[in-house]
């Protein structure tokens, strides 16, 4: 270890915290370029603890991609657990990278991935712990440029005051181009503004400082105007050809236990289904698939290079992958021989063939999870889930007959137009599924079945037909959770629900604007962090923060917007037209469903990228 701090002190600190293995690096396949001449030193920061960060596929892709460039050194930086942070602060140790233990404030570019809104305080906290100035406008020069990517960049406005550059969409193309441009500007000793003006010309690059927001008296956005010669609307960047885009062949292998210690094979991006609550399905459009032969090859190489014995496919809706059976056949040829277990998550409840079910069974015997999302057909139609009760029962029946005893079902509470009857339908549905188990003469002889209902609060998200909806306030949500619990009459059905308080905070930031930046600053001052973790989430402190900033959080979470309102993300273009979303919203209220991309093109707008399923379909 070459950290520039008293090694004895550091050793003592590591021995006094939980899981010191989180902070040491030294893993097989980690990249050490300390003896090489590099031009750009890049800190790839995941704003959560090691075990979460090391399970993230996007991190693996970018780490490999950047390090493949000889003159770029990309090192990992993760959020220290609060016990370690306390020790670091007591001993004047600032945030450092895992590979070389270099202080983050010595890096050229500091890049964060924004996976979920509750990690925003961790982003600020990490910058604070690194000794890097939080406010973008106060950071002068090119050193310590702070950038961010990931799904939350579709509305990154609450972080606009802290981040210099946001990467909209997928970073495989835009990031490399950006870093190369940075290197040129650095050698020419250009100013930060000169560099950012050039960078803004790259597809997907959004420099928040070049946009001014004006507000109405009622707090809504009046307009969003550019203050430099940059596009009025920033369009996201996508990778058109997934087969030929960069995919990593190796990644540091964690020594300690992490959440997902496995190889992940991405099979496609985007989703054809257009479920009306789902942001990911829309912001990653158009749907682009990878060929099964390519996925198979990539997974094989990764398994060889990491020695991991577990493989999982990754997508938003794996049973929609057009070559799923083919891919499974390819996996069959080597995974059993190499003693690698395969898991197939993210399956839809209504298109699991018998053959697929048998395959899942042969791979592993973990529980099956499906997401009907709503208990009644009426509400499923409102959200455009396009799954009938018949289909649910048929799949559960098949699953039971194949040997599964336990099923997990995900639902949401607080969906638009939801009634008490809809909520009671959830437990009714679960009860009927238990009946199906006992109806089958074969299964009745086995051990008792268990259906676990897991509910989460609906959170309206940008770029969905429900982006104008109000989230139920916390009292209402708790009432609904209570109603659900009381409606459950079956001992073999278990009801879990996700905490309403965290969902409320998530909803505030999901559709937040720049006025929330002072909230984040104060939250950071008050030591709020790891909000996604039950043991650290402090709702009372959040309320204190909002009060002191004179911000009403309900304005963001629980207010229904009109279609005419200027939304804080209107200057960001993800290819999904507002007209399409408005139309889908109206259809929702009329309880009408919409077809998926494979059945019929609904003109969502994603065809503007001239790639993927819409372009292929148009050609046909």
């Amino acid at each position, binding site marked *: 270890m070459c950290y520039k701090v008293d090694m004895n002190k550091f050793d003592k600190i590591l021995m006094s915290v939980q899981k010191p293995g989180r902070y040491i690096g030294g893993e097989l396949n980690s990249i050490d370029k300390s003896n090489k001449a590099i031009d750009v030193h890049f800190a790839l920061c995941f704003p959560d603890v090691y075990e979460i960060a090391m399970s993230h596929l996007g991190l693996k892709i970018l780490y490999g991609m950047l390090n493949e460039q000889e003159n770029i050194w990309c090192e990992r930086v993760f959020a220290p657990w609060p016990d370690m942070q306390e020790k670091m602060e007591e001993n004047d140790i600032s945030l450092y990278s895992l590979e070389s233990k270099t202080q983050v404030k010595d890096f050229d570019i500091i890049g964060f991935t924004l996976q979920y809104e509750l990690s925003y305080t961790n982003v600020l906290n990490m910058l604070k712990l690194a000794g890097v100035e939080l406010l973008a406008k106060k950071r002068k020069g090119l050193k310590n440029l702070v950038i961010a990517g990931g799904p939350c960049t579709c509305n990154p406005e609450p972080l606009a005051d802290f981040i210099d550059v946001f990467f909209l969409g997928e970073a495989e193309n835009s990031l490399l181009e950006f870093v190369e441009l940075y290197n040129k500007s650095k050698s020419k000793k250009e100013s930060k503004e000169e560099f950012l003006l050039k960078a803004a010309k790259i597809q997907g690059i959004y420099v928040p400082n070049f946009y001014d927001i004006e507000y109405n008296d009622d707090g809504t956005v009046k307009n969003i105007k550019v203050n430099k010669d940059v596009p009025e609307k920033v369009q996201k960047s996508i990778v058109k050809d997934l087969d030929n885009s960069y995919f990593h062949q190796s990644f540091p292998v964690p020594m300690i236990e992490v959440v997902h210690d496995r190889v992940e094979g991405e099979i496609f991006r985007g989703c054809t289904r257009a479920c009306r609550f789902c942001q990911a399905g829309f912001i990653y459009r158009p749907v682009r698939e990878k060929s099964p032969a390519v996925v198979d090859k990539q997974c094989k190489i990764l398994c060889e290079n990491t*020695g991991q014995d577990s493989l999982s496919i990754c997508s938003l809706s794996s049973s929609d992958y057009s070559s799923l059976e083919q891919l499974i056949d390819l996996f069959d040829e080597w995974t059993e021989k190499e003693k690698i277990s395969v898991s197939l998550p993210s399956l839809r409840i209504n298109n699991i063939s018998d053959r697929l079910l048998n395959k899942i069974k042969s791979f592993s015997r973990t529980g099956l999870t499906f997401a009907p999302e709503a208990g009644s057909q009426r509400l499923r139609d409102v959200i455009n889930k396009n799954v009938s009760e018949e289909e649910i029962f048929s799949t559960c029946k098949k699953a039971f007959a194949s040997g599964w005893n336990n099923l997990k079902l995900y639902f949401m509470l607080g969906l638009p137009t939801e009634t008490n009857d809809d909520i009671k339908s959830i437990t009714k549905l679960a009860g009927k599924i238990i009946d199906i188990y006992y109806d089958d003469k074969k299964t009745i002889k086995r051990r008792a079945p268990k259906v676990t209902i897991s509910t989460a609060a609906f959170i309206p998200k940008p770029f969905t037909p429900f982006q104008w909806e109000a989230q139920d306030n916390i009292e209402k949500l708790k009432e609904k959770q209570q109603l659900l619990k009381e409606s459950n009459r079956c001992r073999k059905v278990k009801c879990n629900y996700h905490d309403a308080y965290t969902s409320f905070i998530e909803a505030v930031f999901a559709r937040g604007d720049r006025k929330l930046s002072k909230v984040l600053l104060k939250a950071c001052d008050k030591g709020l962090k790891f909000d996604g973790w039950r043991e650290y989430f402090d709702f009372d402190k959040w309320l204190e923060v909002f009060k002191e900033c004179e911000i009403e959080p309900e304005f963001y979470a629980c207010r229904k917007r009109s279609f005419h309102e200027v939304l804080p993300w209107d200057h960001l273009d993800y290819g999904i037209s507002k007209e399409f979303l408005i139309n889908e919203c109206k259809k929702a209220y009329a309880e009408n469903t919409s077809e998926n991309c494979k059945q019929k093109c609904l003109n969502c707008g994603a065809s503007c990228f001239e790639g993927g399923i819409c372009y292929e379909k148009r050609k046909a």
Partner: protein
Amino acid sequence: MKNVRLRFKKEKECKYISHLDLVRCINRAVKKSKLPIWYTEGFNPHPLLSFPLPLSLGMEGERECLDIKLEDMAQEAEIISKLNENLPQGIRITQANIPVKKAKDIAFALYELKITSEDKKINAKQISENLQTLLKMEEIIVEKKTKSGLKNINISPDIQMYVVGEKDNYVKLTVVLSAGSEKNINPNLLLKAFEDYFGIKIYAKIKRIELFDKTLNIFE
């Protein structure tokens, strides 16, 4: 089928990973090495690894021991290089031989401790003097966590031999303690005893150097 005894170092960053983490690293390295490892039969085939004496998290190991079964013959040099290629730098296989003794023959272990005090007023000389006093005592009583709860035990008979060396700003203690499946004394107990008797908080970097059988011959 061939039984092979590997000796390895656990040091640098890897001193901070637990025994279970170590097992995971070795399992993966064994798999990646493509050595002719013998796999267990049954539903979940895995290599048969056996660690006669696990090392506590935080301690370094100079000649740790791991027994493994191979299907076929393989040269010692090949085993060592193929495994090291696939292990993190902090774990280094140093030897691969046929086991001489049985795992249960381990009776003692040699540890090297570098001891300093948290209290700046206490210097190496004082630690050294106190340590010598403690080690000479007939009865060194300390609380040990056992399967049946906390017990007070006397660890004096478990100290086979020791050398206390006073350095500039730390004390080097080289000590042989009882080790193995029958009786195992963790050097941290000695440190705890010191703290209990003298009321001085001390801190040590601990390295296990060697293993011995009950006649104090090196365990091979």
